[in-house]
C-alpha cells in the first residue's frame, strides 16, 4: 500500500453558501459603469448571435392530463411561421395544443391572415368540428390556401387520447390522469397552386400519423401496419383506445390478432 502524505485530507469543501453579496460587489468592480472595456485584440461583438431555443417538450404535464409530445425534432431549424393543422378529436384540443406547441411560434387560432403577415404561426382544425365517430373527417382547403398565399409550410399534428372530451377532466387525487399523445409530422412545403390538392396531401399525412401512432412508424412506412378502423363502432372503439407511453416496449392491445 502507498503511504499518502499526512496532510492529504480536507479541501474540496463547498465555499460559502451565500455568494450573492460577494458576486454583486465583484461584478460592480469589474463590470460597472465605464469598466466594460474590450481587451486589446478581441474581435468585435457579433450582432447576429444565435440563441438556442429548446423545442423539446417531452412528457409535458398539464394539470389534468398526462401528456406526451413526440416528433418535435422534425421541426429543428424551422424559423418561419407555420400553419399547424391537427385532427379534431375533442373540444379540449385547442387548450391541449396551446400548451405543447413551441412557445416561440406565438400561435394564434383566429385572425389567420393577419397573424401570418406579422410572422406568427396559426393553429387550424380543418375538420371544423370535433369528430363524433372517431374517424378523420374531410378537411377544409382553407389551411392549404393560406399556405400557398403566404408561402409558409404546414405542420401536420395528431392528438390521440382526448376523444369525446367536451370539457377539461376533473382534478383527481389518485394521479391517474387521462393520457394524451401529441405527434408532430414533418413540415409540408406549399407546392402547386391548387389548395384542394395540397389539403389532400396534408390530410393523408395526418391519417398516416394516426396509423403510425396506433401501430409503429416503420410498419407504416413499409405499408404493413394494421389500418385504423375508419367506419362503424370499431372506429369509435379504436378512438378510445388508451394511449401508450412513447418508446414503450409493451403494446397494450384491445383488439387481438385474428
Amino acid at each position, binding site marked *: *500500500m*502507498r503511504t*499518502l*502524505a499526512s*496532510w*492529504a485530507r*480536507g*479541501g*474540496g469543501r*463547498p*465555499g*460559502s*453558501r*451565500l*455568494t*450573492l453579496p460577494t*458576486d454583486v460587489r*465583484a*461584478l460592480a468592480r*469589474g*463590470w460597472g459603469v465605464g*469598466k*466594460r*472595456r*474590450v*481587451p*486589446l*485584440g*478581441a*474581435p468585435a461583438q*457579433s450582432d*447576429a*448571435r*444565435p*440563441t*438556442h*431555443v*429548446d*423545442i423539446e417538450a417531452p412528457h409535458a404535464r398539464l394539470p389534468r392530463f398526462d401528456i406526451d409530445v*413526440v*416528433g*418535435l*425534432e422534425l421541426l*429543428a*431549424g424551422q424559423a418561419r411561421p407555420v400553419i399547424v393543422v391537427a385532427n379534431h378529436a375533442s373540444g379540449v384540443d385547442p387548450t391541449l395544443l396551446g400548451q405543447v406547441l413551441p412557445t416561440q411560434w406565438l400561435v394564434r387560432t383566429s385572425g389567420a391572415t393577419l397573424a401570418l403577415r406579422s410572422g406568427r404561426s396559426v393553429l387550424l382544425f380543418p375538420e371544423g368540428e370535433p369528430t363524433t365517430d372517431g374517424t378523420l373527417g374531410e378537411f377544409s382547403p382553407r389551411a392549404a390556401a393560406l399556405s400557398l398565399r403566404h408561402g409558409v409550410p404546414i405542420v401536420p399534428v395528431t392528438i390521440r387520447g382526448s376523444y369525446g372530451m367536451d370539457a377539461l377532466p376533473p382534478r383527481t387525487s389518485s394521479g391517474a390522469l387521462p393520457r394524451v399523445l401529441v405527434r408532430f409530422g*414533418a413540415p409540408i412545403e406549399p407546392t402547386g397552386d391548387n389548395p384542394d390538392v395540397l389539403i389532400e396531401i396534408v390530410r393523408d399525412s395526418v391519417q398516416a400519423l394516426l396509423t*403510425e401512432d396506433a401501430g*409503429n*412508424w*416503420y*410498419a407504416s*412506412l*413499409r405499408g404493413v401496419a394494421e389500418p385504423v378502423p375508419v367506419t362503424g363502432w370499431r372506429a369509435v372503439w379504436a378512438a378510445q383506445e388508451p394511449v*401508450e407511453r*412513447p*418508446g*414503450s*416496449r*409493451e*403494446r397494450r392491445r384491445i383488439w387481438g390478432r385474428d
Partner: protein
Amino acid sequence: MSRPGFTLDVDERTQPLLVAQGTRLRLERFGLGTHVVYPGDGRPVGDPTPLVAAALASPLGTAPLAAQLHAGMALTIVIGDLGSPRPRMGSDVRRHLVEQVLVLAAAAGVDDVAVLCANGLAKRPSDAELTDVVGERVVRSFASTGGLLSTDATDPAYVDLGVIDGHEIRLHPRIAASDLAVNIVVTSSWSTSAGRQLVALTDVATLDWALGLETSSDRVSAVIGLVEASVATFTLDAALGEPVLPDAVSFLGRREWEWRVRDQVAFATARQALAVAPKQAIARLFSDLAAGYPVLGVAGGARDQVHASMSTVWTNAVAVQGPPASDVGVVNVWRKGSLHADPASDPLGAAHHAVAEQPSLVEGGQLVRPGGVLVGFHPLSNRFSSRTNSVGADFFAEVLPASTDPTEIRATFQDRFSTDPWYGELYRGRHGHHPLLTFHRWYATARAAATYADVVWVGADRRSAELMGFRAASTYADALEIASGHVGRTPSITVLHGGGGSVVRVP
C-alpha cells in the same frame, strides 16, 4: 457568419474571467500575459434534413445507399457513444440520420432491420436514453419486435472473426449476420469516429487487447480492417459545431467583457443557486441541460473518406490559433468529465477529461511543453454514481491506495475486477459501466499525466488528488506557487476557456 475562436492575451484591461469547477462557477483573475483560448461562437441551428438526404444520395467512394438496399437483406443500423456530445443535443441529429436511412430501407422493402447501439465497455443504454438519441418513432418501431439492441461485450454468442497477432477477434452476432451495417456517428471530438464504433462491436477480450494498457493505432486499425472485411459497411457521419446554450446559461459561452446586465444577473443567480441546491438537484440540472448544435456537414459512404472529410470540416470550424507550447496549462471541467452527466461527481472522470482529453485537442504541437505543469479546476469529490459506476468507487477505494502505476494495476487488479460477477451483472442488466472502462481510462490518464512535471488541482479534495498522484491547492495562486518549483516564477501560461471542445492550433 459566427465569430471564430481567438486567443486573448491578458492585460490590465482584462476583467476576471469565468472558470468552471465541476458544478461550481467562479471569476478568476489571471496574471498579465496569460494566454486564454476562447472557442468560437455557436452558429444558428438549421434543418439537417437536406444535408442528410444529399449525403445518402451522393456518397463518397460507394454507391448511393438506396442502391445497396434490397428486399430480403439483413440491415443493421449502428449507433454509439450516446454520452457525446456534452451538453447533450436538444434535438439529436442522429434521429434524422437513422430515420432517413429507415425511409430508404422501407422503400426498398427491407423487413429484417435492427438498430444496434455499439456501447463497447460503456453502460448499456436504457430505452429512455435510446429514445433521447434516436427518437420515439424508431424505438417504438423496433423495441417491441426485438430489433432494438445494445452490445453486451461479455456475451458468449459473439462469433469468431479471425486472429491478429495470435489474438482471437470476436464480433457481435447481429453484425456478423448482417448484409449491410450502416454506421452512424457524429463528429464532435477526436475520440469519436466510425472506426472506433466498429471496434465497439467486438467482445470484451478484443476491446481490452485493442484499447487497453498496450493500445496502439496499429491494433485498432487491424480490428477495424477485420470487421470491414467481414461485413459491408456504409458510414454516415455528421460534424457538429460549437454548442449554442439555452438563454438562461448563455453567459457560459459568452465572452466576459460582452456580458450584459442579464448575463451578470444570470451568473450571480446561478452561483447562488448552485451553492445552496442539494446535490441531486444540481446533478439533475446538468443532466437535463441541452444545447443546440449546428450541423456543419454530413457525409456518407466509405469510412476512411467520410472520416477524413468530416474531421477536416469539424477541425476547420472549431480550430483556434493558440500560442506556442506553454510552461503551464490551465483547464476547467464542466462540459464533460464524468461517466454520466454530473460533472461534479467522479474524480476519475474529471481527471481523464482534464488531463488526457482536453490537452490532446491540439494540432501541430503541444499545449504544455514536456516537463510543464497542468492546473485543473475541479473539487475531485469522492463521489461516484452507485448505479452506473460502482467500479469507479471501488477502484478509488481499493486500487489507487495500492498503486497508481498502470502496469502494476493491470497485473494485480484488472483480471479480478473484470471477472467479478457483480460488476458483470451491473454491466449486463443494470446499465452500469464495464469494469475495464475504468481501468482503460486510468491508463490513458496516467500516460498523459506522465508528460507533466506535476498536475495541480485548484480547490480539490486533497486526499483524492494525492490518491491519483496529483497535488491540490486552495487557490489558483497557490497552484502557481507549487508549479514554480518546476517552471520558475515567470512561466508562460495557456488557459483553455469554456471547458474544452476546441482544437488549438499550436505553432
